[in-house]
């Protein structure tokens, strides 16, 4: 029972922060709320017995992706500017689309699936370790390659050039 209470608190926290992320008019508030959501998701992973994933979630997502996003927010907006904008388009159609999808999903989830417990009892971490060098060795290596190429790509794009290049056809002018 206590587990359920804890879960509902975490769920409420996660959804609440996600709502702030989605609805807030201030981009910095959005970004910090997303931080909360990610931590909440990590907690949910933990509750479901996926300890390793919880750790990864905190380390890579919170420690990596979130920092990147915050960097981007800070760099692209002068921090002193209080009114950091996060304007949005008219909300109605977006809400309609999202609610429709949500409705279908909830209908399917609540009436179409068995109500098992979501908790994984087995020790998953050793299994993950084995899979990384066993059945999933190819994706493992490939994801390393993706990280490398993402590094090269982002460095190339973000670095300042001394010489500027012209667009197609503008060279001869």
């Amino acid at each position: 029972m206590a587990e359920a209470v804890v879960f509902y608190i975490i769920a409420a926290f996660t959804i609440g922060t996600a709502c702030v992320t989605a609805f807030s008019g201030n981009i910095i508030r959005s970004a910090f709320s997303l931080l909360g959501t990610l931590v909440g998701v990590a907690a949910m992973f933990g509750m479901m017995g996926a300890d390793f994933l919880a750790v990864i979630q905190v380390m890579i997502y919170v420690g990596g992706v979130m920092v990147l996003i915050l960097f981007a927010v800070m760099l692209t907006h002068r921090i002193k500017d209080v009114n950091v904008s996060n304007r949005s388009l008219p909300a109605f159609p977006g809400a309609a689309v999202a609610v429709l999808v949500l409705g279908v999903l909830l209908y399917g989830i609540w009436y179409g699936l068995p109500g098992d417990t979501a908790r994984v009892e087995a020790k998953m971490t050793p299994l993950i370790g084995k899979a990384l060098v066993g059945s999933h060795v190819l994706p493992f290596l490939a994801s390393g390659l993706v990280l490398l190429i993402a590094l090269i790509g982002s460095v190339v794009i973000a670095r300042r050039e001394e010489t500027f290049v012209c667009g197609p056809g503008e060279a001869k002018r």
Partner: protein
Amino acid sequence: MSAQAVLTVAAVLFSLGLYCVITRRNAVSILMGVELMLNAANINLVAFSNLSLGGQGPKVEGHMFVVFVVLLAAAEAAVALAIILSIFRRMGTVEADRMTSLKE
């Protein structure tokens, strides 16, 4: 903690992400929406790993997939943010609807 409750959280996160993605103007905000969607999918993957549907017992595939998704999200965010930085340097904005030199 029933699986349905967990899946519901995921569904709500996904819908919020979808909403965020299609209503926000700021490129960074859109990326945040994408992160919400990815997290929703991750919760699904973990939760489904323990469902009895279509097989038995906990499966490691779902967990493995989450590992890769988190890695890819980081890589994707890195490239996207690099592009955002370079575009900000050049145009002084990251409002997606001000970038309309390519159209029609």
